[in-house]
């Protein structure tokens, strides 16, 4: 276990993230240009999809249906559990609880990638169709949490005889459209389809870019993630102790649940680790704008700090090795 932790901590990925946090702590002017950040995230998502697609072209439908089912199940369970914990135990407002739950119901692509790299490096690579599961998990969690929020708030408004009716809410259709056609969705699913269609032959000539550069560019991306997380550290106090604990304990619970469901669905140790990590991770790309648009009453400091400055580094540093150890035991 300690050895696994050391491998994880001493990788350029983790250390780049740490460098980014450090740069913010010493108030450096270091910043990645906005367009570089966007370009890198487009690259990472598309490459992820493409490579997943090429590997998917070797998988049978039968082998994927069980894992797909448990993934959708995870997408329905985790936002509810997160919401209940925040509202009941944490005494957060309806909007804040739903807003944070939307982040924990969805999934962080970078954490997913880190988990894939990790399982490969410890010699237990995950199934080739994992990126397919990623796309299945990305959206339902956000939707369910936002629906809970909207429903509860209008109930509360009615109870207090409020005039919430004049609030120009955004239609479910609009939100669904935005999520389904969002950048990450299109690139992931598009990459998957293209990768499956072209197979190994088509993949070869583009492999130097979409596979060869992957880890190096991810290292640069993590530098930026570190900068973003570092600039949130100052908000930790405002977020409070409960949110700090939530950002660490909830992932462990969701991670265990994910690994367990994965083992039931017959995934390998690597697959369980990655599915557990997906369940444990909190989105900070797809969820924030959706929540900001739909639940503006929710305080961004809470959900951004929890997802980005607590749960993301936690998963990156110690979470993934933990889910791996759990998966090893579950699959033994």
């Amino acid at each position, binding site marked *: 276990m300690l050895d696994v932790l050391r491998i994880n901590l001493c990788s350029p990925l983790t250390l780049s993230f740490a460098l980014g946090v450090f740069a913010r702590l010493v108030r450096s002017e270091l910043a990645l240009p906005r367009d570089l950040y966007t370009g890198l995230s487009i690259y990472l998502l598309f490459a992820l999809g493409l490579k997943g697609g090429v590997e998917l072209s070797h998988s049978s439908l039968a082998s994927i249906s069980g894992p797909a089912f448990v993934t959708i199940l995870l997408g329905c369970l985790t936002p509810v559990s997160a919401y209940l914990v925040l509202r009941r135990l944490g005494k957060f407002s309806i909007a804040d609880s739903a807003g944070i739950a939307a982040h924990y119901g969805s999934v962080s692509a970078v954490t997913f990638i880190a988990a894939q790299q990790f399982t490969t490096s410890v010699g237990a690579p995950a199934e080739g169709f994992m990126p397919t599961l990623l796309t299945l998990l990305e959206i339902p969690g956000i939707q369910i949490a936002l629906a809970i929020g909207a429903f509860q708030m209008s109930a509360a408004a009615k109870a207090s005889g409020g005039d919430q009716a004049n609030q120009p809410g955004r239609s479910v259709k609009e939100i669904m459209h935005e999520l389904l056609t969002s950048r990450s969705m299109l690139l992931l699913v598009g990459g998957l389809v293209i990768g499956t269609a072209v197979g190994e032959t088509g993949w070869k000539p583009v492999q130097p870019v979409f596979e060869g550069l992957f880890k190096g560019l991810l290292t640069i991306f993590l530098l930026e993630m570190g*900068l973003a997380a570092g600039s949130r550290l100052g908000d930790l106090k405002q977020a409070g102790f409960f949110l700090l604990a939530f950002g660490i304990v909830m992932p462990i619970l969701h991670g265990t649940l994910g690994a367990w469901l994965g083992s039931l669905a017959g995934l390998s140790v690597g697959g369980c680790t990655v599915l557990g990590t997906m369940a444990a991770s909190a989105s900070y790309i797809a969820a924030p704008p959706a929540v900001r648009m739909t639940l503006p009453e929710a305080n*961004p400091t809470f959900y951004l700090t929890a997802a980005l400055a607590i749960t993301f580094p936690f998963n990156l540093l110690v979470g993934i090795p933990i889910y791996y150890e759990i998966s090893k035991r579950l699959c033994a």
Partner: protein
Amino acid sequence: MKTVPLCLLTVIAESVLKKRLIHDVREAGARGYTIIDAEGEGTRQRRVGEILGANIRLETIVSPEVAERLLNVISTEYFDRYAVIAYLSTVSVIRGEKYV
């Protein structure tokens, strides 16, 4: 050179609102708009370099009636819950008839 005095409405808002603001501007009857990326700080929080994105600065030249309508929409829909600032001034527009 003949000019027409018109209202120049400037709105600075967090960038998630971009699509909705464009929609509102069109609905209110403006003939056009110009948008620029911006960063800034206000009473709420810093909006620069964070994952949520920065600000936009929208300006639109409109008749006083359209300006009034737009301000109403903006203030009821966004003021309380989003980071938004809006201000009006009067400018002399060439070929101003085009924008009324």
